[in-house]
């Protein structure tokens, strides 16, 4: 097995080879600082048709990246939304042109805390400016310009992807014909801030983290980052789903070991997921992206709250939530529906019954995928008609 430093070097070499747009214009961030000439890494699937009426923008979640489907060339694993996106899938890449960009603050090629700070010629670490969800989507707008897309057929995303999408629809009200926010929220709840803080504190408690300066030494606070990921994994499942999947099953042993090794399958699962994550994700990126999520509060941006935020929306919305999701609950998703309704927007809503928790949007949930496909295909017909007129 290669050393971690070696692995990082090798990943960086591969990251050099992925699609990147150099955003030449400067972007004033919500925190007041400005970034300019920054890289935005992205991937596309399928072909943009001549009428340019088949483009779909996907926003990724906290630990996602631009590699939505197929094989992720960096990790050599399947893309994070292979269940929904691909040839013949709900978001059919034989028919649609799918675009996804790595968020700024991320670590898959877009400007993030791992990049070199032009002022110091050293990796940013904690000198990287604190970014917001709005900063993320404003950065991604440049990509649509670059690809020559004036108006998307649809934009979609789950979890933090849904949050980006809501912000996108409000900041750029004419950029997408339809929108499918999935399992998200219009403002981060106390519980979600608390869980994010737990993840951040786990990273910061790891001595290797060293105030974010580990990047200079080409190492990674693996232990802290792994715990942060474990917290995430617990929150993505439901109590019932977890009980059904693991119960009290022991990990390849007949009885308790009377030690602190991973006796239970659920422990083993968390450890595996936690440490596997450290090989593909940067600890400082987790700090920055979770912070962006915590700061997200659409109603704060508008006097008059959420209804005012959605005033004059022409975009056609489909909101989807999952019954067993306790991270972004049906109630939080319904609040978005209520606000859209109150503002007179065209909104549909469906709650998918499932035991699989927040993770459901990434899984093979037939009812969910059917709903996604139905909506998208009917929107495509409407969008084609609108373009014809």
């Amino acid at each position, binding site marked *: 097995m290669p050393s971690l430093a070696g692995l990082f070097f090798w990943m960086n070499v591969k990251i050099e080879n992925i699609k990147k747009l150099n955003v030449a214009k400067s972007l004033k961030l919500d925190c007041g600082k400005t970034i300019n000439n920054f890289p935005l890494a992205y991937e596309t699937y399928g072909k943009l048709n001549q009428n340019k009426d088949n483009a779909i923008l996907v926003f990724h979640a906290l630990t996602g990246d631009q590699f939505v489907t197929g094989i992720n060339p960096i990790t050599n694993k399947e893309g994070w939304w292979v269940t929904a996106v691909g040839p013949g899938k709900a978001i059919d890449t034989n028919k649609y042109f799918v675009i996804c960009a790595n968020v700024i603050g991320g670590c898959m090629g877009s400007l993030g805390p791992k990049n070199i700070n032009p002022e110091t010629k050293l990796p940013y670490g904690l000198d990287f400016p604190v970014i917001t969800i709005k900063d993320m989507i404003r950065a991604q707008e440049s990509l649509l310009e670059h690809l020559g897309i004036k108006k998307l057929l649809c934009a979609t995303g789950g979890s933090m992807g849904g949050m980006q999408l809501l912000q996108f629809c409000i900041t750029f009200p004419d950029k997408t014909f339809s929108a499918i926010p999935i399992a998200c929220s219009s403002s981060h709840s106390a519980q979600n801030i608390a869980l994010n803080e737990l993840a951040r504190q786990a990273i910061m408690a790891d001595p290797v983290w060293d105030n974010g300066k580990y990047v200079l030494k080409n190492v990674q606070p693996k232990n802290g980052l792994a715990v942060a990921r474990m917290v995430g994994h617990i929150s993505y499942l439901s109590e019932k789903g977890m009980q059904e999947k693991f119960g009290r099953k022991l990990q390849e042993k007949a009885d308790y070991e009377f030690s602190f090794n991973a006796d239970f399958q659920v422990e083993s699962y968390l450890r595996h997921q936690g440490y596997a994550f450290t090989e593909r994700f940067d600890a400082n990126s987790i700090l920055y992206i979770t912070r962006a999520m915590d700061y997200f509060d659409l109603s704060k941006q508008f006097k008059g709250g959420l209804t005012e935020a959605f005033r004059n929306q022409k975009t056609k919305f489909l909101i989807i939530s999952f019954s067993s999701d306790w991270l972004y609950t049906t109630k939080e998703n319904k609040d978005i*529906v209520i606000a859209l*309704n109150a503002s007179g927007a065209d909104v*549909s809503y*469906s709650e998918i019954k499932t035991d699989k928790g927040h993770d459901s949007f990434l899984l093979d949930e037939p*009812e969910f995928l059917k709903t996604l496909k139905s909506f998208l295909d*009917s929107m495509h017909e*409407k969008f084609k008609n609108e373009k014809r007129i």
Partner: protein
Amino acid sequence: MKKEFKVIADLLSDNTRVLDVGCGDGSLMSLLKKEKNIEVRGLELSQENVQQCIHKGLSVIQGNAETELHQFPDKSFDYVVLSQTLQAFFEPEKVLRDLLRIGKSVVISIPNFGYWKVRTKLLLFGKMPVTKTLPNTWYNTPNLHMCTIKDLFNFCDEKDINIKKVVGVNEDKTSLINKSNLEIKNLFSKLGIFLIG
């Protein structure tokens, strides 16, 4: 096409905004959209029906009319339609008040418990009536508050709810109902369709 939906469609003006509460699989919504260019939204409880609506390109919100009508602003629709569902609510009066708040007008259809076949089944056989419009038996019926056309007529009177039009439906025949023919129409209509508000 159900006669009931045709009657409801005829009651609504073209190019208006309509909320269909308990929209089912979206059949009525499709009709209103296609034939009257009505901008129509639905509220529906069942996930399967919601999916059908989305498949048809209709805007629908999955939710419970009994508890979730509060999300719709006052007078945000020209019409609110409630087809054969009023009798299934725990609190029909409360729901009705909400419908009248949301819509400038409200269209309600009810299966008429005063229809002669229903009356005779109970009178002659001493059993709770099971008919084409009332297909369930007493133990599995979703209908909690059955009423007759006359009941709803009187209810609107008592509660100062303005009745604009009432149509009685029996198979393919329809007829206007007013105070003077109420008794007879209440006996011979399977369905009553009220335009109120």
